[in-house]
């Protein structure tokens, strides 16, 4: 019977109704070890045909069910950023590519507000946030088993890391870094923003850590391991070039970054896409080339030939479109589930109030009976409402994979862009060679008509031949780069095809298992109410 009728708070009203359920609470948000309490409401709803999902985890309290997924194959929940998944548990092995003993675990925590020390016009200075980045690993690149280190980084450092990785690992599907400004609404508080950013950074770094090639990169190692100022330049700073040649670029290299250097450091620039503001001539030339590609009558000398690649790319593009649509519908599904849970809860509350009212004002026995019936309805509705909320939390986690995958597609598109811009460089250099050749020819023909030679023309021919030689070397470099990127694309495509298959299957399974499990629990709640009201049933 209700003992706490004088409580005015609605939530407490709800709780007072559930006195017969000793283990329910609304405030418990953390995982509890299963308590040895016999659950009085346990419904022996075992279907003889197939295993009941309650047997997967039969929680003694609804609080436990809050953060326990029915799907035992998903990774541990991220309730706290400083919790590392146990590297020796079967869960985390699904996170790591490669053997079970390889791990690279990264966490981002402890945002600190810092003051910009350098000159600033504004008194009080610019403030920025730094984050504590903790790494645990046994990878050999990082110093072998049991390594653990922490550094402090700001967002700007992450941008640098991301830029440098895109330069070095062209053609790879490099995870895309979080946006620079993620403030979606003006009213978001600073600490909300910082927390969002912390979560995004952690996700990003973990994704980097999961990429089989990137995780071994020097850039990432420097970022994670080296204390103090980040020892990576913002990007390869190419001095502005002169018209026909290239300037030796001042490269500040730490560690052993291997770059193919053929015939001078300037050739390695060719291995980079043209960057605005610095490579004006190159940009101009490549633009001319791409226009010629699109509008010119003749086909370029070098073309994308890999049919298999083009097919795969097209399929990926279509997949991405459909996935985007599914992602949208998934969002609206989640919202509908949430609304359902909310309304069910409100209905329960309304019946709580009715129960209280009838009990207080009861004159007839019929009223007391009705009050008791209403209390049962309220209890069931409130329980169901909670189940919907939990179901939704889990659903969001599963369907989040869809959004994650859309993020991966961004990385894929970047890699494809790497490929096409490398191709464009090759095409430009090819055209350049052709035009140089024809100029040389013309000059040679013209000068051969003059007896004794034409001093000025001869000099020009020599210059052109020199330019031709340089260009040819550059083209060789560019060819090599293009092939390298193509190979990266190919191996990455294979990698994500397999990963995608596994990821999506586990997502689907998780989603379905979750839905089934919670539906069963809800059926139990309603069947109990049906039993309690069975006296009213008609034949």
């Amino acid at each position, binding site marked *: 019977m209700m003992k706490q009728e004088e409580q005015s708070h609605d939530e407490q009203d709800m709780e007072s109704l559930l006195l017969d359920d000793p283990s329910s609470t609304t405030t418990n948000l953390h995982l509890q070890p299963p308590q040895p309490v016999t659950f009085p409401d346990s419904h022996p709803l075992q279907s003889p045909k197939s295993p009941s999902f309650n047997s997967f985890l039969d929680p003694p309290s609804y609080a436990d069910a809050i953060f326990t997924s029915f799907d035992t194959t998903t990774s541990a929940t991220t309730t706290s950023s400083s919790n590392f998944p146990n590297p020796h548990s079967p869960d985390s092995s699904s996170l790591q590519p490669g053997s079970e003993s390889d791990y690279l675990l990264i966490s981002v925590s402890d945002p600190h507000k810092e003051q910009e020390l350098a000159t600033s016009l504004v008194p009080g200075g610019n403030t920025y946030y730094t984050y504590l980045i903790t790494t645990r690993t046994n990878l050999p690149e990082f110093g072998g088993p049991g390594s653990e280190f922490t550094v402090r980084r700001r967002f700007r450092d992450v941008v640098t890391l991301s830029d440098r990785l895109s330069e070095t690992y062209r053609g790879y599907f490099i995870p895309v870094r979080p946006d620079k400004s993620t403030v979606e609404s003006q009213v978001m508080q600073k600490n909300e923003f910082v927390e969002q950013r912390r979560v995004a950074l952690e996700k990003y770094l973990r994704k980097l850590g999961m990429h089989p090639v990137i995780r071994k990169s020097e850039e990432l190692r420097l970022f994670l391991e080296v204390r103090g100022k980040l020892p990576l330049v913002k990007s390869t700073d190419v001095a502005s070039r002169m018209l026909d040649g290239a300037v030796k670029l001042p490269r500040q290299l730490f560690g052993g970054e291997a770059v193919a250097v053929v015939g001078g450091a300037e050739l390695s620039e060719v291995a980079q896409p043209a960057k605005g503001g610095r490579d004006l001539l190159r940009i101009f030339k490549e633009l001319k080339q791409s226009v010629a590609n699109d509008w010119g009558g003749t086909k370029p000398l070098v073309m994308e030939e890999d049919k298999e690649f083009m097919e795969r790319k097209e399929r990926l593009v279509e997949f991405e479109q459909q996935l985007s649509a599914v992602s949208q*519908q*998934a969002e609206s599904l989640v919202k509908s589930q949430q609304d359902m849970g909310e309304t069910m809860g409100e209905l329960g509350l309304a019946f709580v109030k009715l129960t209280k009212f009838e009990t207080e004002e009861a004159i007839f026995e019929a009223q007391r009976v009705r009050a008791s019936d209403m209390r049962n309805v309220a209890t069931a509705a409130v329980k169901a409402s909670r189940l919907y909320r939990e179901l939704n939390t889990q659903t969001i986690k599963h369907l989040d994979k869809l959004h994650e995958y859309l993020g991966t597609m961004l990385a894929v598109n970047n890699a494809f862009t790497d490929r096409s811009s490398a191709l464009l460089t090759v095409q430009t250099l090819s055209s350049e060679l052709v035009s140089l050749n024809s100029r040389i020819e013309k000059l040679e023909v013209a000068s051969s008509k003059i007896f004794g030679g034409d001093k000025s023309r001869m000099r020009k021919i020599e210059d052109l031949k020199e330019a031709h030689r340089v260009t040819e070397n550059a083209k060789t470099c560019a060819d090599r780069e293009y092939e390298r990127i193509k190979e990266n694309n190919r191996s990455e495509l294979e990698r994500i095809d397999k990963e995608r298959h596994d990821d999506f299957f586990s997502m689907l399974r998780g989603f379905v298992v979750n839905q089934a499990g919670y*539906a069963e629990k809800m059926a139990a709640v309603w069947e109990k*109410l049906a039993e309690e*009201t069975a006296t009213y049933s008609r034949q």
Partner: protein
Amino acid sequence: MNPSQRSLSGSSQSPRSPSSSQPFLSVSVTDPVKLGNGVQAYISYRVITKTNFPEFQGPEKIVIRRYSDFVWLRDRLFEKYKGIFIPPLPEKSAVEKFRFSAEFIEMRRQALDIFVNRIASHHELQQSEDLRLFLQAEEETMERLRSQETGIFKKKPSDLMQIFKDVQTKVSDVVLGKEKPVEETDPEYEKLKHYIFELENHLAEAQKHAYRLVKRHRELGQSLSDFGKAVKLLGASEGNSLGKAFSELGMKSEALSVKLQKEAQQLLMNFEEPLKDYVRAVQSIKATIAERANAFRRQCELAETMKLKEINLDKLMLIRSEKVGEAEYEYNQLKAESEQATKTFETIVRLMNEEIGRFQEQKTLDMGIAFHEFAKGQARLANGIADAWRSLIPKLEACSPS
């Protein structure tokens, strides 16, 4: 859903009555048919009466009635049987585009059926001549009766209440020279009034959320359908075993959408409608409360007037005026009226006391049934969902490579 699921007290269908030679009166409202054209289109119903009451024309009678006929019956009963809680009618106006939707028509038919049966099973109301007219009169007669109604009876009881309140207030103010209207001071009755008014608020809130819950079911159904379609497209573009898995998921999702829409309709008819019915019943009681207040005022007003007339009569008798005869006559008239008013009021009080107990029992039964159907429907839905998803798991395992 069988309309006789709602409880009926006093009818021969209740387990209390012994054998079939008992007097019985059972009515059913069936066969809604749309008649007329355009703006004047309306729904007509077949009303079938089966009875062995001697007052009736025969053992069975079938007539055609429309909504306004039911309104006529309700108004007449309200007028004649003050003190009895007249069963409520479903609302008159509906949003135009739903007026002829199949679900709305069926819900209204059910509600009308319940309305008539409640009257037929009420031991006093079932003897009403107006009821007999309603159940037996030819259509033309019914039409004539309906159009004879003066404007005042076409109004809702709550409007009636307001009118009476205003009129009586003015009269009693004048007669009694008071500013406040006269009201009963019985504390138990005060409690009852307070209870009824509070109850309406609580019930209305519950009903509002119940209606919203119906909407949520529909929305979730729609989301599942859209989601299923998108997933199916994804499956088609993907091909291979993953694509097949997506397609299966999409199809299941669409199938569940259908289940949800069905359950939404069940929820509307078996849970939300009974709650609405409860609210209407409480509103009907409020109308009776207003009637009681009027009767009380009238009684007081007449008693006061009678006293004044008595004083006047004594005065006249003292001075041996020839007006004595007239005054005496008037006084006797007034006395009779006053006694009548007192009797009316006391009848109302007595009836209400009986009715309230019956009302509480009735409602506990009605709500119990509604709750049971609600629970069964939700359990059915949840089990259906669980089964559907569960059946997908082996298919997923079959498609999975690992």
